């Protein structure tokens, strides 16, 4: 009888579960549809891409992807390489380095804010946050002038420095919340057991918040990866990132090449998809950190 009751409950749960799954599926499809559309477009010929009504079934082609890396040129005698490999490298290098730097600086600052609060600790934290409160476009002119004067404009270090500064507040706040969740007794215990402050930090605290650090890294990476405005104004020909390069393919003498654009976007999605996929377990633990009480 107990088994029958359990089966009944399972069936009920099963029904509710199916309902939720269906709902989640519908919402996911609605959100994912534009992405899917772009990926499909990347495999279409120019005619198929512009067809009305839109074609769901078509003969796929890789021409657009080839077009990202090679373009037809009469002077070069056929095909000429584009700069997109460089732009992809730039995007990865600039976003990766600046988010990593911000994470290192932010983690150190977060530990200090969490464990050794100053007089007016909350005020300092608030001030750090205020740097993210105004829309970036408000500060773009002074920053542009500063970069021009200091010679940072167009260099890797210039844009990396800027993105690092942009990511630090976010890193400090997020990582501090992870430190705050830890049981400080563990650190005290390590001190009693002869650990130096460095061993307490690296050996006891950091291993406990690795998932949180991974989550912070991915969130920062997504923000930085997609940044357009500062990249447009502060990168040069050699340091241009993919979003900027993408925009520059618009409005050439042949009009907008939607297939090419879709191919770039599709390629642009791959690295971030890969990183998120690799870190998904940590990410899940990171975003649920602290929502479950000890």
């Amino acid at each position, binding site marked *: 009888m107990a088994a029958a009751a359990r089966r009944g409950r399972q069936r009920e749960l099963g029904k509710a579960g199916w309902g939720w799954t269906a709902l989640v599926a519908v919402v996911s499809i609605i959100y994912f549809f534009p992405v899917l559309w772009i990926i499909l477009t990347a495999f279409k010929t120019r005619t198929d891409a512009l067809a009305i009504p839109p074609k769901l079934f078509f003969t796929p082609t890789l021409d657009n992807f080839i077009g990202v890396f090679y373009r037809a040129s009469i002077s070069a005698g056929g095909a000429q390489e584009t700069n997109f490999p460089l732009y992809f490298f730039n995007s990865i290098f600039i976003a990766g380095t600046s988010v990593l730097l911000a994470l290192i600086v932010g983690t150190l600052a977060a530990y200090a804010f969490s464990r050794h609060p100053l007089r007016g600790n909350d005020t300092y934290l608030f001030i750090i946050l205020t740097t993210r409160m105004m829309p970036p476009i408000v500060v773009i002119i002074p920053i542009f002038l500063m970069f021009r004067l200091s010679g940072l404009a167009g260099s890797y270090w210039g844009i990396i420095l800027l993105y690092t500064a942009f990511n630090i507040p976010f890193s400090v706040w997020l990582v501090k919340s992870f430190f705050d969740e830890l*049981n400080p*007794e563990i650190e*005290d215990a390590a001190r*009693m057991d*002869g650990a*130096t402050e460095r061993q307490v930090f690296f050996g006891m605290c950091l291993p406990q918040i690795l998932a949180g650090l991974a989550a912070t890294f991915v969130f920062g990476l997504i923000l930085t990866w997609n940044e357009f405005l500062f990249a447009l104004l502060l990168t040069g020909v050699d340091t241009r990132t993919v979003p900027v390069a993408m925009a520059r393919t618009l409005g050439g003498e042949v009009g907008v090449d939607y297939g090419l654009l879709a191919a770039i976007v599709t390629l642009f999605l791959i690295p971030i998809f890969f990183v998120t996929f690799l870190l998904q377990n940590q990410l899940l633990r990171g975003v649920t950190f602290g929502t479950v009480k000890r």
Partner: protein
Amino acid sequence: MTIELLQLTKQFGKLTAVDRIDLKIGEGEVLCLLGPSGCGKTTTLRMIAGLEFASDGEIRLGDVRVNELAARERNVAMTFQFYALYPSLTVAENLAYPLHAEALSAGEIARRVDQIARILQLGPVLKRRPGQLAEGEKQRVAVGRSIIRDAVCFLFDEPLSRLDVQLRETMRGEIKAVLEGLNKPTVIVTHDQLEALTMADRIAVMRDGRIEQVASPHEIFARPANLFVAGFIGTPQMNLLPVKLVDRTTDGVRFALGEATVILPVNGATSALRPSAALTIGVRPRAFDLAAQPAPDTIAARVDIIEPMGAETLLHLLAGEHELRVVVDRRTRPAIGSTVHLRCKPNQLHLFGTDEQRLDLRTVPAGVPA
């Protein structure tokens, strides 16, 4: 090795958490710091550990002043209330952690871990991580980690507070046995008087950052130094009755308790007291006999609530406006609303002056005139 606290003080901003306390814990002695939460007992412990720095006063381990030393330089071992096991290390690694600072050989570390695991029966769980342990096992790992190295003294912060009642009794015995084997000065912080009474050689009762009394468990129970200690130690709580001294009789001293009077067999320090002095009488719930008839030395009280506690029964009584708790044998079954007559057992009276301090009193042996 001894622990000595001299005028030790800790201030957090304007708040004085520990206020000029003096305490000496002798060689091999187990001292319990007992008090309600917020009384400064944990702060005192953390100052001895080196996790808080003293605002004033001195901490001496043996002959050495250690105020300025960091926790890791003091060679003091401590177990924490929430065990503070290192979550990313296995049980064996947790136990071995304090030994790394001592630069021992791998063989020696393994030998010590085995030894501790044997004493605390941790052999089967050595490979597990703290998250996979039961509460009692976590507690044993925490104790094991603190006793694995040769520390100069041992500190326990609420060692049993997280265990359920049954486990608490077993662990109390185990910890006591371990502590006896160590023969080092040990300080245990607890708010549980049973824990203090059973494990301590001496108890220091704290309130509001001050030590109210330091004495053996027996002494604390038998001769509480003031009203606070009298009310804090012992369950059910001691009855504390405000009385006025009326006069002296051949059988003792007559006190006024509300409207009624009662003759109690005390003299001693009371001989110096003037009539009408306001005092407090303390009588433990088990220190009453029920008398068959009202007499000059009995207190009349009405039965209000009856709480059977198994072997005994706790009666809540009303003597005038004063509530009384009396523990009687379970076979004694007065009716609710009936009146009983209480006679204090000789030698079990406590008398406190207007300053809340104990008046040292002698009870008068029955039949001998004062």
